[in-house]
């Protein structure tokens, strides 16, 4: 298995490319296909243009710059409450249809004690149900009923939209961008897998700076990012007392 890892190189693929040549033969039949890959009879095809990647010998997927979110189970997303309907809230998470979020899916909520959620509020929630034939369903608690950081996002700060590719990059372990930014500016951030990011910094001024920095780094290499950040900081966008994040 380890040997087959070696000759794998991430590469650009287009929809319809057959991946037989790029995936070692001995893995066939026992691998996990991630987003962007499809099996037709015995062959494996890509369905998106992006970079074919691999994690541990069995898992393959395609990374691409996509804007439209397709709900996937377990994703943490940022959504906007658009409607209160009976026992549920309808939440726009940017997918093809609105997600539902039960009144009871909040920490400590009971039939009597309803959570204080208004139309237009932003919630950070986890997808409990997501498949193509059903409405996606959100929860703001984990299996033991704790919020774990999920729930209504505070009334200040700013939420903006970006591509899903950027979100995935920011969520990588030790994302250089967030780290580097954190060295200069202190801020809070919530990243939704659906391409929405909420940021709060000390002042409106710095929040705008963070938002600008994050949106700009979509098509930047690491060095460019650092350069841009330095410029930003030089332009006065930093706290007087930098704190460790």
């Amino acid at each position: 298995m380890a040997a087959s890892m070696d000759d794998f190189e991430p590469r650009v693929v287009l929809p319809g490319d057959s991946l037989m040549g790029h995936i070692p033969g001995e893995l066939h039949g026992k691998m996990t296909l991630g987003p962007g890959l499809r099996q037709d009879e015995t062959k494996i095809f890509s369905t998106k243009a992006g970079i074919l990647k691999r994690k541990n010998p069995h898992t393959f997927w395609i990374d691409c710059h996509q804007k439209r979110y397709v709900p996937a189970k377990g994703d943490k997303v940022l959504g906007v409450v658009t409607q209160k309907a009976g026992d549920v809230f309808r939440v726009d998470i940017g997918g093809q249809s609105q997600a539902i979020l039960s009144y009871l899916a909040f920490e400590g909520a009971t039939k009597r004690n309803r959570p204080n959620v208004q139309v237009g509020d932003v919630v950070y929630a986890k997808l409990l149900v997501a498949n193509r034939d059903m409405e996606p369903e959100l929860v703001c608690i984990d299996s033991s009923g704790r919020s774990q950081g999920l729930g209504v996002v505070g009334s200040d700060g700013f939420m903006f939209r970006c591509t899903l590719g950027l979100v995935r990059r920011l969520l990588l372990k030790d994302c250089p961008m967030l780290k580097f930014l954190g060295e200069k500016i202190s801020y809070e951030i919530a990243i939704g897998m659906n391409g929405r990011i909420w940021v709060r910094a000390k002042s409106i001024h710095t929040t705008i700076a963070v938002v600008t920095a994050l949106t700009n780094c979509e098509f930047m290499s690491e060095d460019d990012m650092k350069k841009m950040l330095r410029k930003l900081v030089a332009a006065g966008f930093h706290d007087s007392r930098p704190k460790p994040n």
Partner: protein
Amino acid sequence: MTSNPENNSSVEIRPIGSLQSCISKPDGSAVFTQGDTSVMAAVYGPGDVKPNKALMDKATVTVTYKPKIGISGVREKALERMIRNTCETVLLTTLFPRSSVDIIVQEIQDAGALLACSINAACLAMINAGIPMKCTVAASCCMMGKDEELIMDPTKEQTKDAECVLTSAIDSSAHSLIASSMQGSCSVEQYHKLMSVCQKACDKVFEFYREAMERTLSKP
């Protein structure tokens, strides 16, 4: 003034260019240029669909073609259907039941081979949007002049004295014909000749897609 400065020798295709994510609103967008012909396409989806248009087993694909001058009429409807069916063929619509994929194609400049350019723009926009597809599609246009000479990717001026103009769209996996449209007439043999040149030109477009994507994805 409108006479085209580009002088195509018989087997040359005009320069191809593209710009992806050219507009911010749609989920995917691209400008595709072939010489002076330029088309912008945008894709929204898979998104919300009106209940009366929803399909139970697959996504509803719509194409809106916008001419640059005037409002769209019968000719545009025919183009829309051609582009729509072509796109639907390559899209994996069954992955998104009860949703819509809306493709909007805007003519920016018509200097010949407009339909081919529209299909290419739509395909690149779909690639850019990251909607799952079976394969990609490319279209090219080839004409045969009065004395049987072949001109690839003709300009508007050149098509004026064409005996036959063939536009065909090819899929990238089997290199088979997805869509075809023809003006004028030719013999069967000439048709196959045109067709096979078109296929070669489409291969160039496929190569172009790849190079363009490699460039776009070069900075992860």
